[in-house]
């Protein structure tokens, strides 16, 4: 028991230390691309942790998580677009212009993603099981087509940003600074999630995953709790999306494509569902695997597919489970 606990702390500490030192390793190796790659890893890790809140803890099998990721990115993209074009975002009933102020834009991205997940969640959570999976997927696809049809914002081609959003003092244009910013957000989000899953609220959410009917017969209006959890996860994905838009300085409907949701699910599964460190390991593993395989073959997906099936069938505990010897979900 004690040994497992120590191993968990060890894995968490080692991962944190690794991410903290990565820019130094990159500059020692003289490989600036590593910082860019690992910034993307951190951002996807944030999205994957938020997905695990509903997937691994809440038992809500959403196949539409990228909708909120994409929404967050588009908030950044659209507001930047109006600055670049020097047009108004809204001319009626009040005049609103675009913005490149990171604090304002990212806050709006989080709020708007939360709003969207509230809307989609309120409808989807009326169902359970297979229907819930299909409905979340369908709504995400609806947003995908919506952005494709928005010719004003580039339609299929999306929006290119001229620069990242700006923060006072902090230089977001510098890749290393931006990396640490993303790391900071990830650490904060994981800490908040840690408090969340161990709180009264978290206990209710975990209970709902294990036995929904029992929760109702105990007296919990479970729909409300699940919806709030869904919204929190959506907000987290929205923040990740806003960061992604800044990292790549580009947004397109491709961010909302459903295979993206699938990839986030793979990260959670690969790393270990129902843990907070697992999705981070999973995001790292998947993106590194992609990088690695695509060096050798352009058809790396033909290997990823069967690999995924094998992981699902035979290695469900994920990387975190393998490293700590911990069963999934026994927290």
């Amino acid at each position, binding site marked *: 028991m004690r040994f497992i606990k120590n191993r968990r702390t060890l894995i968490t500490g080692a991962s944190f230390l690794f991410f903290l030192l990565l820019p130094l390793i990159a500059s020692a190796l003289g490989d600036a691309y590593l910082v860019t790659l690992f910034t993307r890893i951190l951002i996807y890790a944030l999205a994957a942790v938020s997905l695990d809140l509903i997937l691994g803890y809440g038992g809500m099998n959403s196949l539409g998580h990228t909708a909120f990721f994409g929404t967050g990115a588009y908030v950044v993209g659209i507001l930047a677009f109006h600055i670049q074009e020097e047009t108004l975002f809204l001319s009626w009933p009040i005049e609103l212009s675009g913005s490149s102020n990171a604090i304002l834009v990212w806050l709006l991205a989080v709020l708007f993603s939360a709003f969207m997940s509230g809307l989609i969640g309120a409808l989807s959570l009326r169902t359970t099981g297979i229907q819930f999976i299909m409905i979340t997927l369908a709504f995400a696809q609806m947003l995908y087509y919506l952005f494709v049809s928005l010719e004003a914002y580039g339609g299929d081609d999306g929006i290119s940003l001229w620069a990242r959003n700006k923060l006072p003092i902090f230089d977001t244009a510098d890749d290393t600074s931006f990396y640490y910013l993303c790391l900071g957000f990830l650490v904060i989000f994981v800490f908040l999630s840690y408090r969340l899953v161990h709180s009264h*609220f978290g206990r209710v959410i975990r209970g709902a995953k294990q036995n929904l009917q029992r929760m109702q*017969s105990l*007296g919990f*209006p479970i729909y409300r709790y699940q919806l709030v959890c869904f919204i929190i996860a959506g907000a987290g994905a929205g923040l990740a999306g806003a960061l992604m838009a800044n990292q790549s300085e580009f947004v397109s409907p491709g961010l909302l494509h459903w295979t993206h949701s699938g990839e986030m699910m793979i990260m959670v599964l690969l790393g270990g569902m129902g843990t907070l460190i697992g999705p981070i390991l999973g995001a790292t593993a998947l993106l590194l695997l992609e990088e690695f395989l695509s060096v050798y073959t352009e058809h790396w997906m033909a290997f990823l597919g069967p690999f995924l099936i094998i992981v699902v069938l035979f290695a469900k505990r994920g990387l975190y489970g393998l490293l700590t010897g911990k069963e999934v*979900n026994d927290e």
Partner: protein
Amino acid sequence: MMSNTLLKVRQLQKSFGAVEACCNINLEINKGEIHALIGPNGAGKTTLIQQLAGQMLPDSGSIEFDGQDITRLPAHKRALLGLARSFQITSIFGQMSAEENIALAVQAHMGHSFRFWRPANKNKKLQPTIETALEKCGLLERRHIVADNLSHGEKRQLEAGMALAVTPKLLMLDEPMAGMGPGSAVKMTELIQSIKGNTSILLVEHDMHAVFNLADRITVLVYGKPIATGTPEEISHNQDVRSAYLGEGDN
């Protein structure tokens, strides 16, 4: 109101396609009594419980609980009014410890659980209630064991403990002794006896020995229809019951 009736079921009707699972059920449960519901398999006992608990809505008829019409009330609101149930198939949270299972039951009645920050297991306010319930159901020493790893009998005890933790007004026990060895069954009988008084109990059970020992009144249900209600004495001498049900049991 000095009424002694806690639960009043009037003309309850429920059918699935052509099958009538409940037809015209009238049932009254008094405060503080143990009321047993017996009948052959497929008599509609579980269907009735599901309608009382709100997991299933009746086609027609009414259910009144503690002077309030609850016929259309959702399940979780009924639970908060003091209507608790245990399940025929053990229904617990398998990946949580026994203590956490009980804690969830207590938490449900302590106002909303939109508390996001403080660790749930450090809440001092819930602790006395949780410990009392653990003691009542005999799992105080086993409180840290993950529920999936408890024995079958202990799981049934935990199930009852969750229903009891919040001192409900009416406790519906759906075959609490199913699949139990004789030792555990005795424990469960003692547990049921110990709650009698403050809490009314609707007991569905196949173990006739336990039913006739525990119950104040018995209702016999056959093919979705109650054919008799009375004290154990009356029921055991009732000619209809003997021919329709108890007689069959001898075969």
